[in-house]
């Protein structure tokens, strides 16, 4: 049997697995409005999309992935009953050195209230799918971005720091540097170009007065071009920056975050590490730890060898919309570059696309090209 025949058979096996797992087959249109992708994934994805314009100037694209189209079609059905979708089809991305049209499959579990059980079911299904491709024991890399959110909440940080830390956690590239900068007293002093008296006044308890002052300054300067932000909005952030933003992050806070981020190992080790951290610092992390342990329990019950999972608190997916579990399956020998399967929980996504506010979602995508390579290797 040729390579194509073998790949077709694997696809059939994957679709059969979807059916056994009770997935409804999703077949969204190839041509999609471009807006939701750019809005949710940013300009970096736009560069790789195939975009076209209709007569009315509306932008469309060839679907660059399935999660957003599947969620949009689901929202259009206006049904909140839990449902699991499975898909397999072509996606289109501009790639150098590889075809721009390639196959992707995946699972989206929408509306399941039993979060941790759904998480575990998804991971177990992805392992079965890998097995159907001849990948017996892929490397499982896992994290939970909900843990970092819980840490930020528990530390009761000023909102300017919380905002920055939570965003930078998502954009992992700069995070270690950023912590460094936030804690650097000299950088903060060098950055503070405001007269000390003014800063003191702005830092005073009377925030309304400070805001009024900033509004006056803008009015006196005759500045009318606000570029889409209101005077109040500018004033609020100005005051905030002159206050909290002008002081470095306390050393203990940085140390706690560093210690948190250093936790890695199998999930049980990490849970134990988190509990020790919570006990020593008095931070209320218990609900998040309990969720983690519950998920581990469900994974074990589904026959997943939990001790083999490489769990790390710092593992985020770099996509803003993940809210809890994040995971990847990789080729154990690294003969194939990149993730074979990648996914996680994105409870806010349906709401962002115009769906109902409290409809949870968890899903993953299968990179079939790479899975075929890994299966052949």
């Amino acid at each position: 049997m040729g390579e194509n025949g073998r790949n077709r058979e694997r696809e059939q096996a994957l679709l059969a697995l979807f059916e056994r797992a009770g997935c409804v087959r999703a077949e969204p249109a190839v041509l999609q409005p471009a807006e939701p992708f750019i809005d949710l994934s940013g300009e970096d994805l736009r560069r790789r999309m195939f975009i076209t314009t209709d007569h009315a100037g509306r932008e469309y694209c060839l679907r660059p992935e399935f999660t957003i189209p599947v969620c949009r079609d689901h929202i259009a059905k206006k049904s909140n009953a839990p449902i699991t979708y499975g898909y397999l089809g072509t996606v289109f991305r501009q790639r150098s050195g590889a075809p721009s049209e390639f196959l992707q499959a995946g699972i989206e579990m929408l509306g399941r209230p039993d979060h941790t059980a759904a998480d575990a079911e998804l991971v177990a299904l992805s392992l079965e799918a890998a097995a159907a491709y001849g990948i017996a024991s892929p490397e499982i890399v896992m994290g939970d971005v909900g843990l970092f959110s819980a840490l930020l909440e528990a530390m009761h940080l000023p909102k300017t720091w919380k905002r920055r830390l939570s965003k930078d956690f998502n954009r992992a590239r700069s995070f270690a540097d950023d912590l460094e900068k936030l804690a650097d007293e000299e950088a903060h002093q060098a950055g503070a170009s405001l007269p000390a008296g003014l800063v003191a006044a702005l830092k005073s308890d009377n925030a309304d007065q400070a805001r009024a002052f900033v509004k006056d300054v803008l009015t006196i300067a005759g500045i009318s071009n606000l570029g889409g932000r209101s005077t109040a909005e500018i004033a609020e952030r100005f005051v905030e920056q002159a206050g909290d933003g002008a002081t470095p992050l306390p050393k203990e806070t940085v140390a706690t975050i560093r210690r948190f981020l250093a936790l890695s190992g199998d999930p049980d080790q990490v849970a134990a590490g988190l509990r020790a951290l919570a006990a020593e610092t008095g931070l209320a992390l218990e609900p998040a730890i309990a969720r983690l342990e519950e998920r581990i329990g469900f994974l074990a019950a589904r026959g997943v060898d939990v001790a083999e999972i490489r769990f790390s608190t710092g593992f985020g997916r770099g996509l803003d919309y993940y809210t809890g579990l994040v995971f990847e399956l990789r080729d154990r020998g690294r003969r194939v570059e990149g993730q074979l399967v990648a996914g996680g929980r994105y409870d806010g996504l349906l709401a962002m696309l115009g769906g109902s506010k409290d409809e949870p979602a968890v899903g993953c995508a299968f990179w079939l090209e790479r899975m075929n390579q890994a299966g052949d290797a």
Partner: protein
Amino acid sequence: MAALIIAMPSKGRLQENAAAFFARAGLALVQARGAREYRGTIAGLPEVEIAYLSASEIARELAAGNVHFGITGADLVHEAIPDAESRVALLSPLGFGHTSVVVAVPQAWIDVRTMRDLDDVATQFRARHGQRLRVATKYIALTTGFFSKKGVGDYRIVESLGATEGAPAAGTAELIVDITTTGATLRANGLKVLEDGEILRSEAYLVASLGAAWDEKAREAAASVLDRISAEARARGLREVRAAVPAADAVSVAAEAARLHGAAAPFGTDASPLTLHVAAGAVPALAGMLRRAGAPIVTVTELHDVFVAEDALLASLLARLNRAG
């Protein structure tokens, strides 16, 4: 068909400057009239054809290998050519067309001075208004590359085809990425450049296409064009300084002039008067030094061309072509 095609800007200041540059290099442009006015030749070089194109078209034609050389801004090369390094060679800056591509925000944003601030505001804006900050620009690739390097992700690009600086006031974008030379146009539109918001400092370059048809005839034609261009480029900003220093001291004076003022003695130190080449800015100091060394008189002349045996521009082009193909 001509062996070598050079793309020149077809309008504006860039055209004037490019034509003046060629004239200084002894390359007289002859522009055809009537239907073929977008094509031209160089007097005395029949194997060379000039194609008049817009500056951004020049970048694209270079990338496609449809022209051999082009004169265009580094900004447009980096914007219009993905993976520019492997497709074109920026042979030589030409000393005109200086400009910067910058990130500019409304002056009213008194809380925003750096890209860090912008990043924070972008996140807040998205959370508050449910949409991303809009960046008006025609430099889409440069903007996405720079923002991604700075870790700014919560924005979207609104492609602007002209008068970008008016976009924030018109309400079609919150901020812009555009070129500026003095910042005056930006200020007049109530905008300010972020402290670390300079994406690229650009000027006009002589650019070679690595993918063009570089046959023997094209290489020969390129050699004669580059020889003249480099002679002019080499002479630009250089002064010839002559001084009759005592013959016994010529070697040590030349060495001292090289060390202190970067002066070269292109004809050696045997002949008198001693002849030195030095950057225009170093002339007064060098003249002082030479007189202290005993020269009763020092003369300074502007150089028009400096031809050398081994042309570095041609050598670097040939090296790139060999590597590329």
